[in-house]
């Protein structure tokens, strides 16, 4: 697939990295800065063109005429839309634009079709969605949904003294009588797709596949709280906070918003009449105490400064009895350091944006012979969970799973058949029309047959 990426910020670079690594993509990036282009071209398998994404000569040089897709992710909404429009006119390719201004959020959907946009991505809204999902099931660190929301992959940390400590993966079903499947374990810096004999330890980050009820039951049995949070404190009143508060209030969660700009506070007050908007500096710990951080069930730091967010979350953690923490991180790239801080859930809006777009592209390829329905990056980006639809005469159907010759590091995690969810065991058989969720450390699978050992 020929892809043009306009704008080489964090999202653009992440996309260049991920898309360039896939063998059948020809990626060209456009950015006005020479230094950025030479960095990206040097690091990833992409071509670079220096210039503006709305200059028709530059688009031409990037090969817009033959392109299949243009992704506009510059810092400016207007430029992104303009660039997509021109690409559409010139090359008749699919286009994706990042549009982030809340005032555009609704109006853009109105003209989406006229502009010929295949997808509009709003990083703040996407991040808010992720956070809201986590707050609805606070015990999980990460939640990814499949099969139209009926199946989830939940990531959680095994607590000290849990029944799971020192338990073999194969014993979970018999001992706890729960229909869940462990599809990944992260320990130290390593990620495993565990076999039946793998022994879990306290402190492991475990990802399980289950139906929504199954997950709740499982959490109850291992002694983790499952009810959604009743209230939350959000520090920082930016766009993400606005979207998040809106979603939380809708599902009946009390929201307290702390913002230090008075004008913005007044604005938020009008936009979110049900929320408590507090004018003050979130980094003032006296203020946080006064606002009841000790008794809050969740705490979300969404200021524009990553370091402040991290410190705020650590402070809240030290004061809260048992609350859910969510920390937004925009720029810092030190994953290893941050995951060592035990911050609960961290949200990277840029990664989410990139992931949404890649998902969309996989789905787009779907129409040209690729069968991925949904895709999520799990286990700290070290593995992918992919949902495939099984077509007629698929090589994996009609044989029990334990007789399929799978490649290494592959797990068939879930089968959905006509709305029914099957957590597969060796005897189960995949049938035509099913959707199957596969967890793998391989990259770039496009069809369910990719999971089989090459004949």
């Amino acid at each position: 697939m020929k892809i043009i990426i306009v704008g080489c910020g964090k999202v653009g670079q992440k996309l260049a990295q991920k898309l360039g690594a896939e063998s059948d993509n020809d990626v060209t990036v456009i950015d006005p800065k020479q230094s950025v282009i030479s960095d990206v071209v040097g690091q990833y398998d992409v071509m670079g063109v220096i210039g503006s994404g709305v200059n028709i000569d530059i688009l031409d040089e990037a090969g817009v005429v033959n392109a299949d897709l243009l992704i506009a992710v510059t810092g400016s909404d207007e430029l992104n839309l303009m660039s997509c429009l021109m690409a559409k006119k010139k090359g008749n390719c699919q286009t994706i634009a990042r549009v982030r201004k809340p005032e555009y959020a609704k109006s853009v959907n109105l003209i989406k079709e006229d502009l010929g946009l295949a997808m509009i991505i709003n990083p703040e809204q996407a991040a808010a969605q992720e956070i809201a999902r986590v707050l609805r099931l606070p015990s999980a660190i990460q939640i990814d949904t499949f099969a139209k929301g009926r199946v989830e992959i939940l990531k959680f940390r095994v607590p000290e003294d849990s029944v799971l400590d020192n338990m073999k993966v194969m014993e979970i079903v018999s001992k706890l009588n729960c229909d869940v499947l462990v599809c990944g374990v992260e320990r130290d810096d390593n990620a495993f797709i565990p076999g039946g004999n793998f022994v879990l330890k306290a402190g492991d980050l475990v990802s399980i596949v289950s139906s929504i009820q199954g997950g709740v039951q499982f959490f109850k049995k291992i002694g983790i709280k499952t009810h959604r949070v009743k209230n939350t404190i959000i520090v920082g009143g930016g766009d993400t906070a606005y979207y998040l508060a809106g979603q939380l209030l809708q599902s009946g969660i009390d929201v307290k918003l702390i913002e230090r700009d008075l004008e913005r506070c007044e604005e938020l007050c009008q936009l979110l009449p049900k929320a408590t908007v507090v004018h003050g500096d979130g980094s003032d710990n006296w203020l946080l105490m006064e606002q009841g951080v000790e008794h809050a069930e969740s705490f979300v730091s969404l200021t524009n400064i990553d370091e402040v967010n991290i410190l705020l979350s650590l402070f809240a953690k030290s004061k809260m009895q048992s609350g859910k923490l969510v920390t937004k991180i925009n720029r810092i790239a030190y994953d290893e350091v941050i995951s060592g801080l035990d911050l609960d859930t961290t949200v990277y809006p840029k990664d989410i944006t990139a992931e949404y777009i890649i998902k969309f592209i996989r789905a787009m390829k779907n129409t040209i012979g690729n069968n991925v329905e949904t895709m999520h990056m799990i286990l700290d980006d070290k593995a992918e969970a992919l949902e495939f639809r099984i077509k007629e005469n698929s090589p994996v159907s009609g044989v029990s799973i334990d007789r399929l010759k799978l490649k290494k590091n592959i797990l068939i995690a879930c089968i959905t058949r006509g709305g029914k969810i099957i957590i597969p065991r060796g005897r189960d058989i995949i049938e035509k029309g099913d959707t199957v969720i596969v967890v793998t450390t391989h990259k770039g699978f496009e069809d369910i047959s990719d999971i089989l050992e090459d004949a």
Partner: protein
Amino acid sequence: MNIRMILYTLGWVLNIEAIALLPALACAFIYGELATVPAIVITIVLCALFGVPLIIKAPKNKGMYAKEGLVTVALSWVVISIFGALPFFISGAIPNYADAFFETVSGFTTTGASILRDIEALPKALIFWRSFTHWMGGMGVLVFLVAILPLSGGSNLYLIKAESTGPAVSKIVPKVRQTAKIFYSIYISLTLIEVVLLLLGGMNLFESLTLSFGTAGTGGFGILNSGASTYSPYVQIVITVFMLIFGVDFSFYYLILTKRLKNALSSDEFRAYIAIVCVSALTIAVNCRHLFEGFGETLRHSFFQVASIITTTGYMTTDFDLWPELSKVILFILMFVGACAGSTGGGIKVSRILILLKSIGKEIKVAANPKSTVKITMNKRLVEHETVRAVNVYIGTLAIIFTASLLVISIDNMDFTTNFTAVAATVNNIGPGFAGVGPTRNFADYSVLSKLVFSLDMLIGRLEIYPMLMLFAPRTWKK
């Protein structure tokens, strides 16, 4: 620095060299030169002995950054030259190892300078190997490696950058590996076309192959003591055309293949290159018309010699040392100009000269009107300040290396023209110079020290200075 990855890559380079020696081995059997067989076999075994253990386990950390890229390329070239010299040395064809090393470096760097007084006395297998080094060195061993090996992602661009020529190396398609493959496909195809054309001219396969290798890499090792002077006019014309073809940026051919002829022809560098060739050849033809019978023959010789020198090949059809001063000086200037960036040729490169001339123009404009904003453009595109700076420093550095080399080799007490053109001919990867190292003479009379200096100059010229200098910078090896 990721030493494991560097060693791993070096291992592959050695294995490729072992494989590259096989055609020469076949040659030895075909021509019944059984005496040279052991020398080649021993070299192959030695290459594999060092090469195979290094590649058994791929390092976990495959990070290749700018520094690793430069060091890998420089080390690879030194190592292939050290091993590539063994067949000459072990077989006794070149009894002195320093001489054999000089000859091999001259081969890989596509210089074509020789220490052999009598080429025809060499076994055919070794003549073949000598020419084959040109072909390998022309496009580069590491470019080949990147094309065939699925190494890690885009960072291999650093390898290609360090090995390819010109001020701004870039990809022609998004994938580095694909880019390398395209370059090699074009390279192989063009070489084959030349082989066929030479065969049609009545040459035998051995001659066609070796001469084509020498042309493709813009090397210049001949197989006869008389160079190319005894070949038919048809053969000389074919070689002239192909020398010029291999002196052009390879992305030029990619543009043509992808039907973007207009873009290809609008390249400033290509136009300047053609203009320089034509003007120089015509001037020389007029200047030398009394030396040959008829203007046609004069033109043939002048074009051949101009092509040979500007592309830094170094073949010769006539002893141009006997030409009038004007012609000799033109050739001497062309030695420095060199071929186009991104070609297999050496020298400073036409694009660098263009940028230099344009910056001089800019300086004059700014001096006349200090407040005016002047920017340099190439192909109607702005040239980044960074590139201009790099070009200026490159030429400055080259001048310093030139001077230092001249100083060291002057110990041998040769005359000034010989010394001066000898350094020019090696650092620009041409081969023959004037006077004592003229087209009919060779480098045999220099001392071992001078030969080592020349070898270094050739490597510096081929790899465009910095990779080699990196090897000698203490900072590179500091932990």
